[in-house]
């Protein structure tokens, strides 16, 4: 746990909302990033991050204090996103393209930008069941065991889904003309 994190959680359990505010400040970027990766739309990701922190506060007494808080809050986030997808059948088209600000050769930069955009579009096309472990693995840096815990899946299933997610990405990228070598 991060510095003073257990104390903050304990204080939040005793009803200290400022302590929970500090937890939100520490985790909001990660939670928002996960929600954005899964939902693919910044407005929905913002709502999901908000809901995740409220729900986590309400269910904080179910958190096992000896476990990693990050894994737990990411699991709550993934579940909020899963429900949102289920509820709204939300498969948002990609509308928001961030600008890269790297220097260097403009042609190279453009190619890199193009590739990043293509990958984001490819992620968008993945099924939620594949997208969730992918985002938790490559954005939140969770290992297989933590992803399994977060999503309530056996570790073997997580490995399989990640493998299939990458295979699917490969197929989509090839369709888009991006050469791929395993």
């Amino acid at each position, binding site marked *: 746990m991060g510095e003073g994190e257990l104390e903050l959680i304990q204080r939040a359990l005793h009803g200290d909302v400022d302590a929970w505010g500090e937890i939100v400040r520490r985790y909001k970027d990660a939670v928002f990033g996960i929600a954005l990766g899964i939902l693919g739309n910044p407005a929905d990701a913002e709502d999901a991050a908000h809901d995740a*922190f*409220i729900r986590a506060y309400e269910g904080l007494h179910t958190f096992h204090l000896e476990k990693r808080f990050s894994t737990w809050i990411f699991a709550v986030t993934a579940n909020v996103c899963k429900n949102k997808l289920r509820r709204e059948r939300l498969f948002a088209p990609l509308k928001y393209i961030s600008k*890269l600000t790297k220097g260097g050769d403009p042609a190279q930069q453009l190619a890199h930008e193009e590739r990043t955009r293509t990958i984001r579009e490819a992620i968008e096309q993945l099924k939620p069941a594949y997208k969730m472990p992918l985002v938790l693995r490559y954005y939140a840096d969770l290992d297989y065991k933590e992803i399994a815990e977060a999503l309530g899946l056996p570790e073997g299933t997580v490995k399989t889904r990640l493998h299939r997610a*990458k295979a699917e990405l490969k197929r989509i990228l090839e369709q888009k003309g991006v050469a791929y070598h395993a």
Partner: protein
Amino acid sequence: MHEQELEALLKETLTQYAKAHRDRIADLEYEIIEELPESRSSPLWRWGLVGAGAVAVAAVFALGLWVGWNLSGAPCHDPQVLCLVYPNAKSVSVASQFTLWEPIPMNGPDRSGVWWIRLPHDIKPGRYEYGFIVDGERWVYDPRATEFVHTFDDKINSVLYIAPRGEQP
């Protein structure tokens, strides 16, 4: 593109995408704080009430204080009681200068996961350092304390002041 390159690009893509929209959550902590009730209607108090009701119906005072303590919520509102919320602990003890650092098992957990212990009635006025021992090994300080001490062996002790009888602490 090789697999490692794909993985690196995945990470970069997701990170940049989140970064580009981070301003959306700039005030998220303040929004959340505003939305939450100031004092959690915590399971602690909720279950305390439920437990107290059950005790009133079933016990009719005959089972006495012991039953009251074990079926109702922990009496954490009492300044003579130390409490710790730790729902998943198997045991919690308090160790303090007033116990000569001998771990004394705490009561609990109640249905909200609260462990508690009443201070000895003959405790002398003064300043006492203390901490909780969870599952016999983990030193945990009291988040409700108002003063803490960083010990030489890199632990944190909580501090408790006992006022002379009749005086406010």
